[in-house]
């Protein structure tokens, strides 16, 4: 039999043990939790600035399929377009253009760059990426998806883009270009229009 006095002591001890154990078992917050908090709150800024070019604007500046390489459309989003580069049915690299308006760190990384590709400042990112910045605003990037696709090949594919054509799009200015109507959902072709747009 446990005496009443012991019980009085035991209960708080057990309680604090339970609290301690449950506190320890809670997983550490994710390294992305700060961003989650900032971008999920009400009135969080849009992920892509209103004035960003539509991804469809970029399609015509991508290289064509050539010499065993197939260029396949992959994504066309607000301010972003991406094509896969396949060889023998295998994905070896990814080609992309994005508008850095509203995503300034993407552009500022070029500030200290002295190297150039096709006359535009270039940077290497990680071990798989090569990028140039056109008009201080449009980032053209080639990312290797297979070790056989080298840094030199990335540089060579960047030059296959129509970079001069891309440079004719509006340059970066201190103020944002005139806002376009925001794209709420990707438009579907023809009869593929969604019934509703619940958000």
């Amino acid at each position: 039999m446990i005496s009443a006095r012991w019980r009085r002591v035991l209960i708080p001890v057990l309680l604090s043990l339970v609290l301690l154990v449950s506190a320890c078992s809670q997983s550490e917050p994710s390294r992305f939790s700060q961003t989650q908090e900032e971008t999920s709150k009400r009135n969080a800024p849009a992920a892509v600035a209103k004035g960003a070019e539509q991804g469809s604007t970029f399609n015509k500046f991508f290289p064509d399929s050539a010499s065993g390489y197939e260029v396949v459309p992959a994504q066309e989003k607000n301010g972003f377009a991406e094509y896969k580069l396949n060889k023998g049915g295998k994905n070896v690299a990814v080609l992309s253009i994005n508008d850095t308006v509203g995503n300034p760190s993407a552009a500022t990384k070029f500030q200290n760059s002295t190297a150039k590709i096709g006359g535009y400042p270039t940077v290497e990112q990680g071990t798989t990426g090569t990028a140039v910045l056109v008009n201080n605003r449009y980032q053209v990037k080639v990312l290797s998806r297979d070790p056989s696709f080298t840094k030199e090949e990335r540089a060579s594919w960047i030059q296959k883009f129509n970079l001069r054509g891309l440079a004719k799009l509006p340059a970066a200015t201190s103020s944002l270009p005139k806002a376009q109507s925001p794209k709420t959902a990707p438009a579907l072709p023809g009869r593929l229009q969604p019934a509703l747009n619940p958000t």
Partner: protein
Amino acid sequence: MSSKSIYDYVDHLPKGGLTVNALKSLDWVVPGQWQNVVGFENTIRAVTGETDEALIQQIGDRAVTLFNDKKEGYQRALWLYQTVDSASGALGAAALANKVGQDISFLGILKNLTPKPEKAQSIDLCVKLVVEIVAFCQINGIPGDSIGDFLASLKDYGGESLMRMAALVCFDGLIPLGPDFATKGLASIKSMTSSDLEHNQTFKGVRELIPGGNSAGQLGFITESFESTKGWMDNFVSSKGLTPDRVVDNLSKFVDISKDKLDYLGAFLDMYVKYYEHTGIQTLAHRLIERSVAEI
């Protein structure tokens, strides 16, 4: 729609269990296409091949930001993948509510299973296919400048997306409807009225995001989508030599099932194998990370 973060979803994907085992049993159909990559950081490393911590942080932060912006369509795609799975199995699961928490085995719950009528099964198949197309557009936009470009990007399906289509063909086509499921499904959907569609549980779950305006228009859209992908499905079945027997044989190596109760097997898979949600989250994370590493 969603207040959970993308890393929460990806970090909580199961490493094992019925869904994962059922998908593993399809490796022979699409060899090497699907590895069950779970965990957000793992996915970043697997997709990009990068190991630099600062870069992984930047990629993850951008992905979290893009996912949280509802206008970007990712949350709608996630909702579609989740809803089409839970709606199709909802009726059966309700009947088995008292089994929650117990080990689920096919034979153990056989007496509680009711095979779905062929018509309902056909609608499920068609609706799931349409959900794939709509979710694809929410995630990727309409890539390229023409319908041809769009079709080329659909044809380039690989990895977890191709696995999802293999599971659709096998688990929602071959097993419940037999080898001529595509022809059967199309005939069934063509003879259907919009009221048949309105009463289908799977359709009800996702109808608000199906193009077409009203249920008659939606039926038209579903029929059209099914018609245009039927060739792909028929070719998939014949080129891989898929038969219900072979699918069930392989499934039985991974999941404890009985081969002589095909009707019931369809109902069982419907309820417990959430392959759309599982591979859908993987697809979503993959494409989101692909975009993020390109944009930073």
